């Protein structure tokens, strides 16, 4: 099976989930090892290509052109489609990111195929590939197959193990043609201080509506009720953030907290936000609405801290504390600081 793995990167910084795709491609080879070809598109991306070799690729096809300096989906899609048309792979794997979702979508139109997104498991039976993926944001799973000779699959982050990096491993790097049919122009960036991304996070500490209810806080004078509530919530999220920080994790939030304006929606976990798959999910002041529980279904372990013993979040938790998050969360941060030697 001729497999390509698309390496997604931002300004030369590879999305770590790309390596998970390389690891999966290797395991799909089974007893007959396949040649693993990585694809790197961009401008001045030699380091990404080298990193792909060190993560297991045998060869890397590099489209290096100033027209590919910024990700522009129509240009990247034309480059990919031309490459796939001439080299006829059976399978192209992508990590699932904002870029690859659109890139794979467009190339699928060009190549008379379609994309299976967010794969959490892949079985190969002869030349048939069966992919498991969540639908209804994790409330259900489906198995799907594609009738196309070329399959395009994007992988859910953290669903497949990341291969060890073999520093110094080399391989073939081949330049391929870039298409330059741009319809759009990139005018600039404002790159946020995002910290650990929810998609890649092994540990997530999330806050809910409950983070605004600290009775011992006195908001500064001059705030109206809504401003005072948001101010209190932000103090609450500071505690959540401190725990996340000591654990090296990301900060998440429930829809209720996002809707109330406590924190940007990019932090939202749950059905209308992000579906996450951390090893540890600590829910602080989150009651556990059905769509939030769907979003954390793939978490390996859930810990819930909530003052309401009947909150649904306890039904999915391994450990729970019925109590005041404003006392428990800082105490937990202190306990981990000591135990982890930080």
């Amino acid at each position: 099976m001729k497999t390509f793995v698309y390496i997604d990167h931002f300004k030369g910084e590879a999305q770590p989930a790309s390596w998970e795709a390389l690891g999966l491609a290797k395991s799909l080879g089974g007893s007959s090892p396949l040649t693993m070809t990585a694809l790197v598109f961009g401008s001045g991306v030699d380091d990404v290509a080298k990193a792909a070799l060190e993560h297991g690729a045998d060869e890397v096809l590099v489209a290096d052109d100033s027209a590919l300096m910024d990700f522009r989906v129509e240009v990247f899609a034309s480059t990919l489609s031309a490459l796939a048309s001439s080299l006829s792979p059976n399978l192209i794997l992508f990590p699932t990111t904002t870029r690859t979702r659109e890139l794979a979508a467009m190339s699928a139109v060009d190549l008379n195929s379609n994309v299976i997104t967010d794969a959490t498991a892949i079985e190969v039976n002869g030349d048939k590939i069966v992919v498991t993926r969540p639908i209804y944001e994790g409330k259900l799973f489906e198995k799907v197959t594609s009738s196309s000779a070329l399959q395009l699959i994007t992988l859910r982050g953290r669903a497949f193990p990341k291969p060890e990096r073999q520093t110094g491993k080399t391989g073939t790097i081949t330049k391929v043609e870039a298409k330059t049919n741009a319809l759009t122009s990139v005018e600039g960036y404002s790159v946020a201080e995002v910290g650990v991304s929810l998609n890649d996070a092994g540990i997530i500490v999330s806050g809910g509506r409950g983070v605004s209810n600290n009775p011992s806080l006195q908001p500064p004078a001059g705030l109206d009720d809504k401003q005072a509530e948001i101010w209190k919530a932000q103090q609450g999220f500071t505690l959540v953030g401190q725990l996340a920080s000591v654990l090296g994790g990301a900060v998440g939030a429930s829809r209720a907290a996002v809707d109330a304006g406590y924190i940007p929606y990019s932090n939202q976990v749950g059905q209308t936000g992000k579906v996450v798959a951390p090893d540890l999910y600590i829910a602080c002041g989150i009651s556990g609405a059905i769509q939030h529980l769907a979003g954390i279904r793939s978490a390996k372990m859930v810990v819930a801290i909530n003052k309401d013993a009947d909150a649904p979040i306890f039904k999915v938790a391994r450990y729970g504390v019925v109590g005041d998050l404003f006392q428990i969360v800082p105490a937990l941060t202190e306990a981990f600081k000591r135990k982890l030697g930080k």
Partner: protein
Amino acid sequence: MKIIACIKQVPDSEAKVKAEGGQISWRDAPLVINPFDEYAVEGALQQKEATSGASSSLSTVTALCIGPESAKEALKHALAMGADDAILVSDAALNNIDTVGAARVLAAAINKIGGVDMVVFGRQTLDSGSGLTPAQTARVLGWSMLGLAGQIKVQDGSVQVERVIEEGRQSVKAKLPAVISVVQSIGEPRYPSFMGIRKASKAEIPVWSLSDLGIPAPDAIITRTELMNPPARDTSVEIITGESPAEIAEKLADKILAEKVL
């Protein structure tokens, strides 16, 4: 400016969706406009308002949906929010289409409407959630794709958006016509007004079939072979208690460390 908002009808986000006898069941939960598509309607209405004063001709928003007859309810929600008109594409041959199929049908409908400047989508649907259709529709039309926009600005026949990506924001510009998908930062969807609801309840929504669009039924490339409920979670919760927050935290930290998830 002629703006299209593409929407879909899905089970409500609070619905308990389950696999029952190989079928998807949401029991008696209501079908609603896909929540992400409410943002698409909101984004489209914002652009209508922003551009209506500037040009001599008035801007319009048309809500467009593929679905069964019952999906008219989702279109009526868009009308009640302020869309000028609505079109349903409905055909028995469209029951099992995949995203490329949907993109081809939407593109055909957009071409039939004619003179369209901007097509706005939500970033994904709550059901299949693959988020592919906006970019695929753009590709079929041969138009620019500006995905995951948190802000849209139209000026002199061009559109500039702030794309919300993993690393922050990317500002991208294109000539119209363009396809745009929006994220929540576009702004909270407005509530239907009383007048809007009255207008929507009386609206006659035209229904187009594949023969009206002049295209054959698209073949689905992706097909489902099995439907599964997620594996049940080990639900036994151990409640940690203690005399003080410090004692509880101490015990909890030890439990978490013993699980080797750090």
